[in-house]
């Protein structure tokens, strides 16, 4: 790989890459993100390579395997440039048709097009699809433009020019000022102003400073950081380079979960490429700035996403948080000033430097600027990664982008922010995605997970799920989190199993308040949020569980019984066959019955029944 020694070299290289690519008359962009790989994109990629070979198209058609495009629901996805034709649910068998029809004859394969679920019309290009149309994809859009393992792709779209501009046209102070002016806030959950963090770290005394990229994303249902790191690792590296130069650091660390194998591989390749091109190392782009990055893999502890625990883990100690009476920007990794930001925050930096802080701050709401990537999951039609302008109301995300509930049951609530966040009822869907507004409503943006729930979700059960998660993932260092969460789980379990008492609701609230005031780290302080927010908005559900010993959503096994509705039952015997405990009796063409003594309430009969005759009491 050619060494890039000056900004001119970078510009020349970019022009050369673009020139080389003029020979391609089309580019097949296939999503190789984790979601699409799970839908067997690997086989499609192999088939495309074979077909291109067979037709001798290697010199005129470019194949680009990229990171996640976001629309995981429809994967594997193929976009054909320059027309941006969009094919979804592509299988290896479709490849021959795509090559012969679309590439060679400019015909469209209609059965692979996306069908608008509302109008039923076929949609040809990505930008016309409602899921993409309602978004503002500042970061994610680059995922489609680059092969994560190709630094040329990143340079071709103007990569590392922001670094060149920063190194030669701006002073470190003005970079910090620019970030401050952009009002960028940390995307990892806390929402701390990034500029302020950088300024404090820059001013902190010490000859050695560090920057860290936190890629230890562990919230259930959230995968924003994963897809940015998998899909565009150079963007994160460039952000870290700019940050390190502004702060005065010469060493960076990327702490990435080992459960993200593709992210680990891609960032390794990216670091290697950047080193070979001279974008990491001594005298970057001919300046006096030296910087290198080390990649560390996390061992799978949720708590290691907390900054002090992450630093302890980097130091080789047990990953447990420390009290933050002195901030990590002054006393961080190896007791040196350290700036830690998460993947998405770093990914926002190059664009701010390139387009200026005002362009960034022009987007968003009063206290929250820019865009935010959210992982939209749950009972919803279009699951996937979405990027919206800060301040977009939740209802737009759930109904316009997400397409609403995925079955006839109406949407009941949305859980935002993972285990630290809370549940917001449908009446609160007018709330904007904004750090402060969601916090005031008892939830938070957190890292950006968004789980949509419908009427069949029991909110007490949701609280129980998160408490179980937190009990397993609490490091156990401090009393409120270790014992408090396990006691809360004990109480909530009592409630879901019919042993609850009304005064226990107050105890839950009191415990939650104790946790939020006294726990050691940020994760412990917010551990009670799932309980507190469900209590705030769905208190009557708790009360019904306790007073009437019933679960309105029909989820809590101890409080429900299954029965067969004799009127709609067609006596087909499917349920009888499916029941693992032989609890269903009745001959063919005769009324069936469930023996409650034998029934273990697994619900298999209900999912087997084609006539919805199994009812929950």
């Amino acid at each position, binding site marked *: 790989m050619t060494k890039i020694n000056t900004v001119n070299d970078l510009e020349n290289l970019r022009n050369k890459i673009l020139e080389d690519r003029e020979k391609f008359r089309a580019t097949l962009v296939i999503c190789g993100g984790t979601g699409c790989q799970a839908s067997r994109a690997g086989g499609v990629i192999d088939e495309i390579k074979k077909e291109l070979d067979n037709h001798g198209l290697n010199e005129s058609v470019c194949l680009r395997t990229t990171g996640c495009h976001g629309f995981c629901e429809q994967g594997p996805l193929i976009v054909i440039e320059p027309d941006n034709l969009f094919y979804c649910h592509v299988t290896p068998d479709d490849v021959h048709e795509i090559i012969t029809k679309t590439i060679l004859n400019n015909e469209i394969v209609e059965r692979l097009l996306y069908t608008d679920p509302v109008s039923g019309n076929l949609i040809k290009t990505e930008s016309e699809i409602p899921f993409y149309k309602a978004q503002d994809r500042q970061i994610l859009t680059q995922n489609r433009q680059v092969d994560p393992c190709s630094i040329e792709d990143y340079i071709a779209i103007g990569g590392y020019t922001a670094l060149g501009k920063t190194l030669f046209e701006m002073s470190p102070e003005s970079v910090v000022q620019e970030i401050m002016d952009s009002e960028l806030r940390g995307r990892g959950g806390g929402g701390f102003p990034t500029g302020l963090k950088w300024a404090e770290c820059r001013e902190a005394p010490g000859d050695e400073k560090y920057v860290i990229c936190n890629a230890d994303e562990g919230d259930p249902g959230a995968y924003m950081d994963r897809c940015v790191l998998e899909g565009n690792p150079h963007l994160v590296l460039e952000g870290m380079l700019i940050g390190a130069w502004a702060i005065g650091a010469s060493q960076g660390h990327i702490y990435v979960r080992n459960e993200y194998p593709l992210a680990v591989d891609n960032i390794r390749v990216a670091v290697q490429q950047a080193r070979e091109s001279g974008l990491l190392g001594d005298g970057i782009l001919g300046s006096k700035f030296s910087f290198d990055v080390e990649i560390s893999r996390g061992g799978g502890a949720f708590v290691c996403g907390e900054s002090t625990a992450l630093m302890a883990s980097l130091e080789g100690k047990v990953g447990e948080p420390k*009290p933050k009476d002195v901030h990590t920007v002054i006393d961080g990794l190896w007791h040196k000033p350290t700036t830690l930001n998460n993947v998405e925050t770093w990914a926002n930096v190059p664009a701010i430097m390139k387009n200026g802080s005002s362009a960034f701050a022009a987007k968003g709401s009063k206290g929250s600027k820019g865009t935010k990537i959210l992982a939209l999951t749950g009972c919803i039609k279009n699951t996937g990664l979405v990027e919206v302008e800060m301040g977009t109301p939740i209802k737009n995300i759930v109904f316009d982008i997400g397409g609403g509930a995925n079955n006839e049951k109406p949407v009941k609530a949305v859980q935002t922010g993972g285990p630290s966040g809370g549940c917001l009822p449908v009446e609160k869907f007018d709330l904007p995605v904004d750090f402060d507004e969601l916090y005031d409503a008892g939830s938070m943006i957190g890292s950006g997970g968004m789980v949509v729930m419908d009427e069949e979700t029991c909110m007490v059960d949701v609280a129980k799920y998160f408490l179980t998660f937190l009990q397993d993932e609490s*490091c*156990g*260092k401090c009393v409120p989190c270790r014992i408090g969460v396990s006691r809360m789980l004990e109480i909530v379990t009592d409630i879901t199993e019919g042993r609850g008492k009304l005064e226990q609701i107050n105890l839950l609230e009191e415990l939650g308040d104790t946790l939020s005031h006294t726990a050691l780290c940020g994760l412990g302080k917010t551990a009670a949020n799932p309980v507190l927010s469900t209590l705030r908005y769905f208190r009557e559900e708790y009360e019904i569980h306790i007073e009437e010993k019933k679960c309105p959503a029909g989820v809590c096994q101890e409080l429900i019984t299954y029965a067969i509705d004799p009127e709609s039952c067609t006596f087909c015997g499917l349920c009888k066959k499916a029941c693992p405990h032989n609890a269903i009796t009745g001959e063919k063409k005769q009324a069936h019955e469930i023996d409650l003594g034998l029934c273990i309430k697994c619900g298999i009969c209900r999912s087997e029944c084609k006539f919805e005759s199994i009812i929950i009491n």
Partner: protein
Amino acid sequence: MTQQVTLNIDGALIRAAKGTSVLDAALDFGICIPHLCHVSNIEDIGSCRLCIVENIVNGRSKITTSCTLLVQDDMMILSNTDKIRRLRHNIAELLVSEAPNSRAMQDIALRCGVEETRYSFRNNDCILCGRCVRACTGEFGVKPLGFVGRGKDRRVEAPFNLRSKLCNECGRCIDLCPMVMPACDGPMETGKERLCGNCESKLSDTDLTLGYCVGCYFGEGIQCQRSPINV
């Protein structure tokens, strides 16, 4: 000479050497802030959270543990407000219901105003304060004691749960363990578990956090600085 700072704890102006913790400064002065995991001269980790205080910064109250908070000039600390007492009560209640069979735990609970708990008793033998782990030096400075596991599985163990050759048998871990004091008679009878009333009688004048010392002997186990043994 060590640099001295002056801070305000509960209205008292206290001079303390720079580098000491607020808890140490308060205890030296005679303000008793309940604590469990803190041991003099050993690194503090702030795990039991009993020694929480309100630190008033720019008019805003911030709750933090006094053992990990270092003294600074013009600090304003409140250790005995209604809010702190309420939170401390809740933490002590959590602690004592984990190990009601410990006299030290019962004593701490009563000092923090817990007379009965709203949770079922769990009767654990270890409260995970980490005193032993931090006090342990072992041979060559390598500790044969450490925490194993996470969250509810956290426990103190020697490597592979075997007596390690690194243990130099100093016995300090046992000296410091708050759980080795024999439990009171009676309260843990199966089916009739309750908090001990015997300890309470010693503390009849002070149902909340101590404003002054009654000189009880139970402070010995939790290293109360004003316990007659220590003074």
